[in-house]
């Protein structure tokens, strides 16, 4: 017979923990705080818009909804490519992992470029965030929106754009590491938490698109 232990340690003590590795848990916790950040901003938007409906133009009067709808589609596609990247990592498919990550970075950058073009066009039509330069006019000179509109619009979409920018930068780093072979079938937590962040940012955009562009 084997003598397993010389000292009797009753090992029947329950093992604590979530069964999730630290990094993933940390990312979930962090995203909770991000939820609150956007809740605060969206709450502010809703309060201001309800208090002063006259300051806001109707959907499509100032904003280019079809262009942004296309942009939304692009961001959703980037979530799909992210899922494919993670699936490739699960299977140990290095080539797939690298290509899908590259595609995600590209789609993210594409989204940002379209947003930049949108900002540029809006600003050149006089739609700016500053209170001192307010009053958006339509082609016939009619007043379409007032200061609150620009401020809240740029703040909300701008903070989302900032999150996408950070995401693209981090994702580029992840991609670089993937090309260096940093992720294996057994260990690819970095890809997973990157994906969590990315999906979160997409989700926020869908909510923002609905509130800011459609309602």
């Amino acid at each position: 017979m084997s003598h397993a232990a010389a000292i009797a340690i009753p090992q029947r003590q329950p093992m604590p923990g979530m069964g999730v590795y630290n990094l993933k848990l940390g990312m979930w916790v962090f995203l909770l705080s991000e939820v609150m950040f956007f809740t605060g901003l969206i709450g502010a938007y809703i309060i201001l818009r309800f208090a002063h409906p006259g300051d806001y133009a109707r959907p499509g009067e100032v904003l280019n909804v079809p262009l942004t709808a296309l942009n939304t589609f692009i961001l959703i596609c980037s979530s799909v490519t992210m899922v494919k990247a993670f699936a490739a990592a699960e299977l140990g498919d290095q080539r797939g992992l690298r290509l899908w990550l590259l595609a995600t970075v590209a789609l993210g950058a594409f989204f940002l470029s379209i947003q930049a073009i949108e900002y540029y066009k809006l600003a050149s039509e006089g739609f700016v965030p500053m209170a001192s330069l307010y009053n958006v006019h339509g082609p016939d000179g009619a007043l379409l929106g007032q200061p609150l509109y620009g401020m809240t619009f740029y703040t909300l979409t701008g903070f989302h754009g900032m999150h996408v920018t950070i995401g693209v930068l981090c994702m580029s780093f992840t991609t670089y590491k993937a090309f260096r072979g940093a992720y294996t079938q057994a260990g690819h937590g970095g890809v997973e938490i990157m994906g969590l962040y990315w999906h979160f940012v997409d989700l926020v955009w869908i909510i923002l698109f609905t509130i800011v562009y459609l309602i």
Partner: protein
Amino acid sequence: MSTMAIPQAAAAVHLHDDRPFIRRYIFSTDHKIIGIQFLFMSLLFLLVGGLLAMMMRWQLAWPADAQHPLPGGSLLPETMVAQGIMLPEFYNSLMTMHGTILVFFAIMPLLVGVFANYLIPLQCGAPDMAFPRLNMLSFWTAVPAGVLMVAGFFVQGGHAAAGWTAYAPLSAVPEYSGVSTGQVLWTVSLIILGFSSLMGAVNYISTVINMRAPGMTWFRLPLPVWALFITSVLILLAMPVLAGALILLLFDQVLGTSFYLPQANGEPLLWQHLFWFFGHPEVYILILPAFGFVSEILANGARKPIFGYHAMVLAIVAIAFLGWIVWGHHMFQSGMNPMLGNTFMFSTMVIAVPTAIKVFNWLGTLWRGSIQFQVPMLNAIAFVAMFVIGGLSGVFLASTPVDIFYHDTYFVVAHIHYVLFGGSLFGIFAAITYWFPKMFGRMMSERLGKIHFFLTFLFFNLAFFPMHNLGNAGMMRRIYDYRQYAHLADLQPLNEFISLSAFALGVTQLLFAFNFLWSLFRGKKAEQNPWRANSLEWSAPSPPPHGNFAVTPIVYRGPYEYSSPESAEDYLPQDQPPAEQPVPAPDLVPASS
């Protein structure tokens, strides 16, 4: 899938720590060093914030009185003090900075930065935090925030002067308060501090969830860990809202937007909603950890199990939850729909229930205990008494009809200080004196500690209790010279009395500083477990080495088994194996065949 971090990383204990000085004490990733860094930083800010209070009290004792020039006033620039008399703008800066520094840079880091860092891994039986490097970053983000905050005193245009709540539009455009650069620095500093707290919170939450030692179930956690865990959840969810509100304020200040400016359709009340949606949970961030420390110390000092452990945990959770739905009680007088006012009134009063549960459980713990009046215990008992007074005045303020009268008077100031000084700070004194031996391997002087305690208790009450009377008499808070109102001029003698008590209170704190520094170098060497306590930190050496435990501890029971019949001693450490094994391990039975 990636490997799971099962929390048994039997720590590599470096008895001979050969990391260079900088890695060890400055840019350390060791949670204990980071806790101690926070300790020194926040004690420094406690001193600064206290000093500002002394100057305010001088002004209130002898408002704009040439007979009583501000001591040292001649050292300050003409923009602050002219001919020994403090200028109104400077008074506004003082009261703003006093509140801001003490709330955000003293009490909050003392409770959370110091003790969440120091205690969570030790009491959970973990070698370190879940993310040690993030932890280091969190401290080194808090430092520049503090520097920016203080730097405001030296910039052109004067310091922030819109009160610690920075109500817009006062805080948003220079025309109103006459300051701009300082107010912008104030905003930026708090945004940065928010990042620091957030990193901390992510770390503490992940550590409690994932890094507990085997056997450390949720309901075997010591109450400080529970309290700090729930507090971290509050920080995690409240800080981002403040950050968002502050960013909008910053835009108003520097970019020309008008989120909070009525002249361009902005909403000043929006700031109040966002601020207090953060602000009320924040006041629980400032008290829940102290609840935890005091529970631990009362049980230890009474040599009895804590009364109603589960109720204590549930009460913390309930208070934290209710804290989210009561923020409007700060805005009763700001022009709110009366129906909304009633909702906030009732929800606020409901908080009294879990709070009372905690108070009665503390009393139940003391009941028939063999109480030992050591310094931590004295401070913990004072905490309970003072917190009850502060909580009661809170119920006054929470009822809308009464608050019409009391809002923005010194009654509110009395309330704040009974909960924040009488509450949080006594809790902090209790905690520092209790864990000092573990942190530094030396005991603090009992005699000095007792003198400090009794004088603090006395002068605290002499200084702050009469403020209730000032409030009754109608003296408003944040006022530079109340003597310009005929009905307040008579309050000067009472104000003078309060100020003298406050000066005595301030001087008494030097005793604590002296005791702290002296004991650091000269204190009696501490044993491993000087308070004969049960929780895991006392089974590590004092101070614990890098990595904390030589072997990962195994936990068999809850932390409050004092005077247990199971043990000959009157305490039973959590990691001491049960005396007899319920089932004999079959391997140890000699094989007969």
